[in-house]
C-alpha cells in the first residue's frame, strides 16, 4: 500500500477536486454542506475520507457523480476526471462517463440492488448497456467477476434474487457490479457499515486485493477510523464541510496534527484498552450547523489549542511536511499528543477488587427464548403440523455481580438482543431460569410486579425513536418518577431537574421537544429516564452504536460515572469489541443463541480463546499503529437460527475445527480460570498455547512492513 501518487508525479491524477463547494437549497434557506474540499487520487491509490455525520462526505461523493438531488448544487470549485472537467458537462455525457468509468458502492446493499430483478440480470445489464456486449459474453464476464469477489457458487447466484443472498453476499455482488466495467474511479460510501465484523473483514480484504489487481483509484468514505486505517493509502479528514487534514495514513495515525484529528483518535477506545487504564476524551461542544458556522476556524470553539487568531481568521489548507496538508494556524506548534491517555484520575473508579467481591445478583441457567415461525403450510395455518422455531436464545448460563458490568458481544443473529428483551420482560422465557435478586424473571412485563419493573430498566439503541416525539423531555423523564409513586407530583419538577443534571444536561432541556435535541442528547435523556426509578440493573442494548464517535465517548463516560455513583449493575450489549472491552468488567461472547466464552474482560481478550473470539478479535479493524493483529479469517456467513448446525454451532465456519466431534456433540463448558469458561472441544492446553491476536510492537516497524507488501 504505497503512495502511488508520489511514485508517478507526472501522471494526471484520476480524480482531482479543487475547492469544491456544494449547497442545498431548502425552504429555510441555503445550506452550505461542503465548503472547501480539495484532493487528488492517482491510479491504484485509495483515499480514505473520514468524518462524522453531517460533515459533508456523502455530499462530496454525490457531487462527483452528479447525484445531488433536485435541490443540491455545486456552487464552486472544479472536479476533474482524468483531466476532464466534469462541472458543466452536458448531463448525457456525464451519465455515460459515470456508467462506464466511475462506479459507486453504497452503504446498504439491500437498497442498492433491485429486488425485482435477478442478480445475474443486474450484472449483465452493466455490460450490455455500456459496452454493448452480447448476452453470452456478458454472462461469462459476470460469472468470472463473481468468482473474483469470492462469491460462493457464482453460477447459482446469477439466478437468484437479491433477497435470497445474505448481506455479505449482496455487498460482494455490488462490488462485482461496480468493477465489471473496469472503472478508473471507484467511490465507496461506507460499504461495510451494515455488515457484521467477520464479514466486514473479508470484504475489506477484497477491496485490498481488487484495488491492487485492477489499479482502480478508490475514494473510500467512512466514519470508522479503524476501517480507514486498513484500506487507505492517504486519508482526508473532513469537518464541517472542509478538509482539515490530508496526509498519508501512517502520519495520520502516528502523528496527527490537526486538533480535530487528534481528538477523534483520542475519543475512540482502542482494542484492548479498559476503563481502569484509559480515559476516553469526548470532544466538547457540537458540530456547528452549516447555517451557523463560526467566524474564523470552524473547529475553534471546541479546540483545546485555540487562541485569538483562531476565532478571527479562517485558516487555509497548507503543507506541513512532505505530503501532509493541515488547516490550522498553529500546526507547527502542536506536538503529537495523541495517545496520551490519562489514568483513572478522571474517573475515580472503585478498585477492581471491591467489584470482584460483590455478591451475584443476576443469574441465568439454560435460558431459552424461541420465536415461533409463521405457518408456512396449510396444515400449519390450521394449527396442525410441525411448528418451526427461530431458536434465538438457546441455553445460556450467565452471572453478574452487584455494581459490575457484563458486556455481551456477538454478531447479528447471536441472540444478544433477545437476551436483553427476555430479561426485561418484553419477550417471554420459554425454558430455563433467570434469577434477579429474589425475583424469578420468567414472566413478561405485563405480569410482573411494579416493584420488579422499577428494578430493571433499559436504554435502547436508536436515539431517534427512544423518546416520544409528541411530549416534552421534562414530561417524559417525570413520568417514571411519578408513576411509581416515589416522587409526589408536586416534587416532580425538582426530580426532573436533578436527573437532567445527573446526565449533564441543562435544566432548560425539560421544556424542549425531542426533535430539538441531537442524537447524543436524546440518548442522555433516555439514560435519565431509565435511571429515574433508581433501578438495580440497567440493560443497555447497543446504546452508543448509532452515535458519532465523539458523542459515544461522552455517553460512555456518563454511564461509567453514574455506575460509580449509584452502584447500578449493568448489562452492556454491543457489537463493537473495543467499546465492550473498554466498558465491561466481564464479557460474554455469543453465537447463534449460545455462549462461546464468558469471563473477565482481560481474560477474554487474551489466550486461551474460543476460536470464534479469536476470529472476532482478528477481524476488528483497529487504528492503533502500535498494535499488531493476527489475520485469522472466519469465512462464510452466519447460518439461519431456524435450523442451527448440529453439535457446536460454530463448526461450519470454525478455522480450528478438529473433526467429527464438532459436528456431533455440543461442546462442554471448560473452565479456564475461576470465572472464565470456554465452550469448545479443543483441549484447554492447546488453546492456551495459541498466540495472542494482538501484540504491542514498534509502530514504525509495522508501517514499514506494510508498505513492502
Amino acid at each position, binding site marked *: 500500500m504505497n503512495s502511488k501518487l508520489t511514485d508517478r508525479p507526472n501522471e494526471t491524477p484520476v480524480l482531482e477536486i479543487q475547492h469544491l463547494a456544494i449547497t442545498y437549497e431548502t425552504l429555510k434557506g441555503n445550506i452550505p454542506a461542503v465548503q472547501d474540499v480539495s484532493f487528488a487520487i492517482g491510479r491504484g491509490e485509495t483515499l480514505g475520507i473520514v468524518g462524522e455525520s453531517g460533515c459533508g462526505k456523502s455530499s462530496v461523493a454525490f457531487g462527483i457523480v452528479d447525484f445531488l438531488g433536485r435541490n443540491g448544487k455545486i456552487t464552486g470549485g472544479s472536479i476533474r476526471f482524468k483531466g476532464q472537467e466534469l462541472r458543466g458537462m452536458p448531463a448525457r455525457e456525464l451519465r455515460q462517463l459515470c456508467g462506464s468509468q466511475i462506479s459507486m458502492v453504497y452503504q446498504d446493499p439491500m437498497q442498492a440492488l433491485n429486488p425485482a430483478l435477478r442478480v445475474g440480470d443486474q450484472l449483465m445489464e452493466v455490460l450490455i448497456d455500456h459496452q454493448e456486449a452480447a448476452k453470452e459474453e456478458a454472462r461469462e464476464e459476470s460469472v468470472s467477476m463473481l468468482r473474483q469477489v469470492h462469491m460462493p457458487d457464482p453460477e447459482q447466484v446469477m439466478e437468484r434474487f437479491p433477497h435470497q443472498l445474505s448481506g455479505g453476499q449482496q455487498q460482494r455482488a455490488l462490488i462485482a457490479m461496480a468493477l465489471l466495467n473496469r472503472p478508473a474511479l471507484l467511490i465507496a460510501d461506507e460499504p461495510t457499515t451494515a455488515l457484521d465484523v467477520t464479514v466486514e473483514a473479508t470484504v475489506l480484504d477484497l477491496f485490498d486485493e481488487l484495488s491492487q489487481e485492477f489499479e482502480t483509484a478508490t475514494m473510500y468514505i467512512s466514519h470508522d477510523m479503524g476501517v480507514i486505517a486498513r484500506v487507505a493509502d492517504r486519508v482526508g479528514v473532513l469537518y464541517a464541510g472542509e478538509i482539515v487534514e490530508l496526509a498519508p495514513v501512517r502520519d495520520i495515525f502516528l502523528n496527527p496534527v490537526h486538533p480535530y484529528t487528534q481528538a477523534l483518535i483520542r475519543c475512540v477506545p482502542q482494542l484492548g484498552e479498559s476503563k481502569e487504564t484509559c480515559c476516553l476524551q469526548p470532544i466538547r461542544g457540537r458540530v456547528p450547523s452549516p447555517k451557523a458556522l463560526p467566524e474564523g476556524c470552524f473547529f475553534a470553539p471546541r479546540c483545546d489549542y485555540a487562541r485569538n487568531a483562531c476565532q478571527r481568521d479562517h485558516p487555509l489548507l497548507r503543507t506541513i511536511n512532505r505530503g501532509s496538508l493541515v488547516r490550522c494556524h498553529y500546526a507547527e506548534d502542536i506536538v503529537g499528543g495523541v495517545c496520551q491517555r490519562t489514568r483513572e484520575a478522571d474517573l475515580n473508579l472503585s478498585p477492581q477488587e471491591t467489584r470482584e467481591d460483590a455478591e451475584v445478583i443476576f443469574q441465568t441457567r439454560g435460558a431459552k427464548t424461541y420465536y415461533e415461525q409463521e405457518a408456512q403450510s396449510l396444515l400449519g395455518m390450521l394449527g396442525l403440523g410441525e411448528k418451526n422455531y427461530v431458536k434465538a436464545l438457546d441455553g445460556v448460563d450467565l452471572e453478574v455481580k452487584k455494581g459490575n458490568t457484563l458486556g455481551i458481544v456477538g454478531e447479528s443473529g447471536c441472540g444478544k438482543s433477545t437476551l436483553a428483551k427476555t430479561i426485561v*420482560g418484553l419477550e417471554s422465557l420459554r425454558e430455563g431460569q433467570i434469577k434477579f435478586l429474589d425475583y424469578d424473571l420468567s414472566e413478561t*412485563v405485563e405480569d410482573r410486579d411494579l416493584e420488579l419493573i422499577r428494578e430493571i430498566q433499559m436504554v*435502547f439503541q436508536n436515539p431517534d425513536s427512544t423518546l416520544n416525539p409528541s*411530549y416534552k423531555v421534562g414530561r417524559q423523564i417525570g413520568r417514571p418518577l411519578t408513576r411509581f409513586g416515589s416522587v409526589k407530583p408536586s416534587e416532580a419538577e425538582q426530580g426532573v431537574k436533578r436527573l437532567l443534571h445527573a446526565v449533564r444536561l441543562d435544566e432548560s432541556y425539560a421544556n424542549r421537544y425531542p426533535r430539538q435535541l441531537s442524537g447524543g442528547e436524546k440518548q442522555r435523556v433516555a439514560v435519565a429516564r431509565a435511571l429515574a426509578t433508581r433501578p438495580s440493573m440497567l440493560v443497555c442494548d447497543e446504546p452508543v452504536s448509532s452515535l458519532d464517535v465523539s458523542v459515544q465517548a461522552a455517553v460512555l463516560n456518563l454511564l461509567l460515572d453514574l455506575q460509580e455513583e449509584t452502584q447500578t449493575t449493568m448489562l452492556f450489549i454491543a457489537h463493537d469489541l473495543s467499546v465492550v472491552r473498554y466498558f465491561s468488567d466481564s464479557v460474554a461472547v455469543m453465537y447463534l443463541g449460545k455462549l462461546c466464552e464468558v469471563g473477565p474482560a482481560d481474560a477474554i481478550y487474551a489466550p486461551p480463546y474460543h476460536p470464534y473470539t479469536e476470529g472476532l478479535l482478528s477481524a476488528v479493524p483497529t487504528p492503533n499503529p502500535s498494535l499488531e493483529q493476527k489475520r485469522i479469517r472466519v469465512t462464510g456467513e452466519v447460518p439461519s437460527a431456524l435450523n442451527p448446525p448440529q453439535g457446536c454451532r460454530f463448526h461450519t465456519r470454525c478455522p480450528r475445527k478438529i473433526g467429527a466431534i464438532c459436528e456431533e456433540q455440543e461442546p462442554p463448558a471448560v473452565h479456564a480460570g475461576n470465572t472464565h469458561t470456554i465452550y469448545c472441544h479443543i483441549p484447554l492446553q492447546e488453546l492456551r498455547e495459541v498466540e495472542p491476536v494482538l501484540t504491542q510492537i514498534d509502530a514504525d516497524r509495522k508501517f514499514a512492513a506494510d508498505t513492502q507488501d
Partner: protein
Amino acid sequence: MLEQLTPILASKKALVGLGIVLFWVLAASIGPFLVPHDPLHQNPDAINSGPSAKHWLGTDDVGRDLLARIIYGARRTLILAPLSVLIALMIGATLGLVGGYFGGTVDELVMRLLDAFMAIPTVLLYLIIISSLGASALNVVLAVAIGGVPGIARLVRGLTLDIRTREYVSAAKLRGEGALYIMFLEILPNARGPIMVDAMLRVGYAVFAIGTLGYLGLGLPPPLPDWGNMVQRAHAFIFSNAWGVLWPALAISSFVVGLNLFVDGWQQINRRYRG
C-alpha cells in the same frame, strides 16, 4: 401553535382553501343576521324565479329565497358534517388502536366486523340506519358517522401497527403502563398527522353524504333547509329554473374543494419542511 401555523401560511393552495372554508364559516355564523329574507317564508308570486334585485340568487319552487336558504343551510351543514366525522373518529380510532395494538384474535375480530360494514353499499347502509332509527338530525349524523368508521379504523390500525414497534412504546411497557395508556397516550398522539389529514377530507365526504341523504329523501326533515335537500327538490324543476340546483350544488362543491385544497397544501408544506 404558531409553529404549526407557519406551514399553512407558506402555501398558497392552503391559504386559498382556508379562505373558502372560512368564508362559509363566516356565512353560516353571521349570515343569518344579514340576510333580509326568511328562509321559510313562501312567496307565491315569485316561484322558481331567477336572480333579481329582490332575490339575489332567485327563489325555489315554493317561492322561498335561495340566498337565505343557502346561508341557513350552511349552518346545518357546517355543524353536522364535522360532528359526524368527529363521532366516526372517536369510534374508528378506538377500534383501530385496539386491533392494531393487541393483534391476534382481537385484531381479526375487529377487522372482520369492519369488513362486514364495508361490504354493505354505503347508500344501502344509510337506508337501513335511517329507516330503522327515523329521520332526524341526530340520526343523519349517526348514519354518516357509521359509514366513515371502517375507513378511519383501517388507517389508524395501520399506523398503530407501525408505531407500536417504536422504542418509546417498549419504554412505556417497561414502566408497567397499561394498554389503555399506551394506546391513547403514547401511540395516538403520534398518529395525529395522517389522522387529521384524513379527517379533513372526510368532512368533505360527509357534506356530500348528508347531501345525498337529503337527495334521497332520507335527510333532515323539511322545511329546514340543507344543501342536500335543496338539490333534491330543485332537481325536478331543473329545466325551467336551473338556479335552484346550481346554487346549493356550488355551495357543496366549493366547500369540499376548499377543504381539500387546504389539506393538500398543508400536506405539501409539511413534507417539504421535513425533507
